[in-house]
């Protein structure tokens, strides 16, 4: 049983560019959450998708947007990249009617 998968593993962008990160949830999971983990810090909640809608959002600007597809996979888009967006981006999925989140390996984004 494959766990949560994320692509790409690493990404290097320059300031002002746009980036798209992808996540496939565990089989049977319908909810996807995204977190940003800056170096030396704990993960911070960006937003959560359920039934192709953004259900909850953390304290992140509108430059951060997402999407969930009918197969429950998800994308995180970040526009107008800033140096401070450099971080590990983690995707987590959870099953229906359950609150346990299972994390993927993350995408390391470096903004130069």
């Amino acid at each position: 049983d494959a766990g949560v998968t994320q692509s790409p593993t690493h990404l290097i962008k320059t300031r002002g560019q746009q980036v798209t990160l992808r996540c496939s949830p565990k089989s049977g999971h319908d909810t996807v959450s995204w977190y940003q983990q800056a170096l030396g810090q704990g993960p911070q909640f960006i937003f959560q998708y359920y039934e192709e809608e953004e259900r909850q959002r953390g304290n992140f600007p509108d430059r951060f947007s997402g999407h969930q597809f009918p197969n429950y996979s998800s994308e995180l888009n970040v526009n107008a990249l800033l140096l401070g967006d450099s971080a590990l981006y983690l995707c987590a999925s959870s099953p229906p009617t359950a609150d346990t989140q299972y994390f993927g390996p993350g995408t390391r984004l470096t903004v130069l």
Partner: protein
Amino acid sequence: AQSVTQPDIHITVSEGASLELRCNYSYGATPYLFWYVQSPGQGLQLLLKYFSGDTLVQGIKGFEAEFKRSQSSFNLRKPSVHWSDAAEYFCAVGWEEYGNKLVFGAGTILRVKS
């Protein structure tokens, strides 16, 4: 506002010694509590969780944690640490009234000396 505190940034223990990592949270009477472990450059692996019931929960790799509502704490313990336990440990809390968004502590880096 919801917050999670892990007061120890680094902890060093000898192999075979016992371990306790501290976690305190603020706000709310109905928390969901988790401990995750992260190896360098990796994602988060779930060690254990508490939703309700017995306040002492067992997890993987020989870890356990105890929920103490009166102290708003959920400390992680292991009776005998192995060198492979060296990693960063994160406490995370969700609150029923806030959906299943997780708030994480800043993490505790565990070093194991032989």
